[in-house]
């Protein structure tokens, strides 16, 4: 028949075609077409992204995709960033590495997020994969700088060394000296996470050898003078993270620094700027013409300094700042950055509520001036419903709206009402919304709005909100695309937990801590849905019936074998 002829492409051709499919979502779709395509996809898939390391086992992965070269693994639930997960919870990468060493000898890329990585694992990695090129460790823990020595010594083909925001025991900076003198292949070099001073001469030589270096992110121990030397050697940099940006310079030295930045015409992303002051910041102005990402979240700048700086950054798309810039600084953002798409405002001192920081006026000003804004992360002390409604009216294209009113259960400070209407406005106006973090005083009404309107919502984070089970029920019954739900300190109990029975298999995970869920509720869930892992983390002093922290996720690998004593898989 006609139809069968069209299916009999030789496999090679199919493979060729599929290599052009870069998105794994597309690949997942084609694999569902028919058996031939499924096989073609599985044999040609070289990149896998596993968002929950316990949802699948190494063996199952390898069986389906035998030719993988690039692996991204994510481990612990996100709330482990905030000390809500016990340190021995799991997500150790070693078993994966052992399996990969056997079946993926040509592995070239490994990206880990929130995994436990030991020095032994790093050494094992360095020894086992001759072709290893790209290593990225983000918010991992378990290793020290000693482990990095092995990577530096044995990964001769390394192009990417990216160590970011990990919990690293920094014993010394000598790891850098383990790169051999002939090693020259680095394109991405990020060690801004580490604090120890490295051998600057070795660093200088390394940078000068690596002609393809595009991304250089040094740590705070690198001085301004040293940075200058590096920039002279690598004017081709596209992304730069400086070290300490404060040193007593003469006028002459300053001019030299300025001209150095002037030569770096390709810089698109700038960060670090630790201790930057008004005096030295102007040195970077010449490099700001093409800047699309500026991370000032480690520099306590004031509004005037920010204003002057932003005048030189017309193309800015993403900006991260501290709330020291105040509302006035955010007004400058609104006036100077019409192309802005992402804004993150971090608190300079989150535990001191006498600091003014930023208010709704700041974000309002940005929304008036930056209509393309679609990603916001905003830490503030208080807000009003009206302000949020206006903000989303000005910027209806929000895809990520993360609001953190730092005082739990803070109402609208003008009307004293709950913040329900604010988030109601967000979900009603921003139809493309994918990620939402709510805060402030919220009743079930807010969640009714979310369930009713947030049809594209995938990730929802809730803290200190809601009045009853109904709140969570609205979300579970209403949001069709919900993938990840993280809840802490809310009055949601077993009824709420069980209202999501039908959703959990299509979700990646659910986290509920300090809510009203009981062990019985969890047991019932586990019994009804065998393809979910229902894990309960018990705090020491709680009573037996209360489920302090619940983590529910879908898996094809069954219950895990490596949970610590405080974690019960039901």
């Amino acid at each position: 028949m006609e139809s069968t002829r069209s299916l009999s492409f030789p496999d090679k051709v199919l493979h060729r075609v599929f290599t052009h499919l870069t998105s794994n979502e597309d690949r997942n779709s084609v694999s569902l077409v028919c058996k031939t395509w499924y096989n073609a996809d599985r044999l040609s898939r070289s990149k896998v992204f596993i968002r929950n390391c316990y949802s699948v086992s190494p063996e199952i992965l390898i069986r389906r995709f035998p030719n993988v070269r690039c692996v991204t693994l994510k481990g612990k639930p996100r709330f482990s960033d905030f000390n809500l997960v016990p340190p021995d919870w799991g997500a150790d990468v070693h078993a994966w590495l052992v399996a990969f060493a056997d079946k993926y000898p040509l592995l070239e890329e490994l990206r880990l997020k929130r995994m436990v990585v030991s020095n032994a694992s790093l050494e094992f990695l360095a020894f086992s994969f001759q072709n290893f090129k790209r290593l990225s460790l983000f918010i991992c823990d378990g290793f020290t700088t000693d482990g990095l020595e092995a990577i530096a010594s044995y990964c001769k083909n390394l192009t990417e060394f990216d160590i970011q925001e990990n919990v690293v025991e920094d014993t010394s900076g000598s790891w850098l000296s383990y790169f051999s003198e002939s090693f020259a292949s680095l394109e991405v070099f990020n060690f801004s996470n580490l604090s120890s001073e490295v051998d600057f001469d070795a660093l200088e030589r390394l940078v000068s050898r690596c002609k393809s270096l595009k991304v250089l992110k040094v740590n705070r121990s690198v001085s301004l003078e040293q940075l200058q030397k590096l920039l002279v050697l690598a004017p081709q940099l596209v992304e730069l993270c400086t070290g300490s940006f404060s040193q007593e310079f003469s006028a002459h030295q300053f001019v030299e620094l300025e001209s150095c930045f002037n030569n770096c015409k390709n810089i698109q992303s700038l960060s670090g700027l630790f201790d930057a002051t008004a005096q030295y910041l102007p040195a970077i102005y010449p490099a700001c013409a093409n800047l699309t990402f500026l991370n000032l979240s480690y520099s306590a700048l004031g509004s005037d300094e920010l204003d002057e700086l932003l005048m030189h950054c017309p193309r800015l798309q993403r900006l991260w700042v501290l709330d020291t810039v105040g509302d006035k600084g955010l007004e400058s953002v609104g006036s100077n950055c019409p192309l802005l798409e992402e804004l993150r405002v971090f608190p300079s001192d989150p535990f001191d509520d006498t600091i003014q920081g930023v208010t709704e006026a700041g974000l309002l000003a940005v929304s008036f001036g930056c209509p393309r804004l679609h990603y916001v992360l905003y830490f503030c002390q208080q807000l009003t419903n009206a302000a949020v409604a206006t903000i989303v009216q000005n910027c209806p294209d929000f895809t990520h709206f993360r609001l953190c009113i730092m005082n739990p259960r803070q109402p609208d400070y003008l009307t004293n009402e709950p913040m329900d209407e604010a988030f109601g406005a967000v979900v009603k106006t921003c139809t493309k919304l994918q990620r939402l973090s709510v805060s402030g005083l919220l009743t079930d009404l807010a969640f009714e709005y979310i369930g009713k309107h947030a049809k594209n919502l995938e990730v929802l984070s809730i803290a200190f909100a809601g009045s009853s089970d109904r709140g969570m029920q609205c979300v579970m019954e209403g949001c069709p695309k919900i993938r990840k739900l993280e809840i802490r300190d809310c009055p949601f109990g077993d009824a709420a937990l069980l209202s999501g029975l039908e959703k959990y298999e299509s979700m990646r995970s659910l986290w509920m801590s300090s809510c009203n869920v009981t062990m019985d509720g969890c047991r019932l869930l586990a019994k009804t849905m065998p393809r979910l892992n229902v894990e309960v983390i018990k705090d020491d002093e709680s009573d037996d019936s209360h489920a302090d922290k619940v983590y529910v996720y879908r898996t094809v690998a069954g219950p895990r074998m490596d949970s610590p004593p405080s974690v019960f898989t039901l």
Partner: protein
Amino acid sequence: MSAPLEHDYIGLGLAEASSMEIASEKLTSSSSSSSTLSTEQNSCNNNNNNNSNTNNNTNKALLDFKETELRLGLPGSKSPERKPTNNGVSVSLFGKDIENSSSKVYSLSPLKNIVSGAKRGFSDAIDGSSGNWGLSMNGKSEADLCKGAVLYSPRGGGLDEKNKIIKETSVLPQSPKAAQEKKKNQLPASNEPASAPAAKAQVVGWPPIRSFRKNTMASNLAKNNDDDGAEGKTGSGCLYVKVSMDGAPYLRKLDLKTCNNYVELSSALEKMFSCFTIGQCDSNGLPGRDGLSESRLKDLLHSSEYVLTYEDKDNDWMLVGDVPWGMFAGSCRRLRIMKGSEAIGLGMYHFFFFFIEISVKNPFEV
């Protein structure tokens, strides 16, 4: 004096509660605050009669009887009917805080009823109130009373913990379990900033900030606190500020605390930048600044090309000399010896006789 109602341990009844507010204000200031528990009502009555009605009314508006009613119970336990109190609206029995609506209110007397209905132990009440009630029962000193109180308190050393609970803000009615967990969770978040945290309950993992950022900001704060004055922050004993001079190849640092007035400041600056005072060298090349006479000073002043300015806390550049020394020293972050041509707008002040006559070609300029 009405018969004491059989209510609570300090023997106050319904009617007296509203007058307590007024009474307490009187108590803090009056010297005759020798109110014992039993005679409390006496003074209350008296004060009540003496007070104007307006006082009564405003205070009544602020009071809700149930809020002010003292009840027995273990420290930290709750009365179910307690209303939650919001930020800034704190009800205190002792009047001190009613005026004070700032957010610092909870760093004061621990007797706030911010946590809905949390019962205080005896020691709590006494300790906190010793300043207000002026309790002097039968001639005993307050200290003795406190000591005695501690003995009675079921948790003698537990004041800190109670304070922690009491420091919570805007708490809605919670289930006892949640309250317990909150209490447990009041461990300082790891790597707190170096500055003392405000009187706020520190819930684990809130606000949601990653430890890398917390650590970095904490070390930033520590740096600024230790830093010997790049920001001009006052440490104990020294206040170093940077001094720059237009045309000089490097800056200097000066400790403002070593100077007590502007005169001393200028001589200190003079000493520092004397190597640039070419114009003032006499024939054998030595600087001739010693014994600069008044008249010579004035000569130099009037032909001065330089002006001394400073940067204050608001990042504004100000002319030195306008404000009293103390004010100047407190707000000065940096000094700059500005070229006269730039300082035209500031006027040619002769207050500072410190300046340099430099020839057009300054060999020190690079």
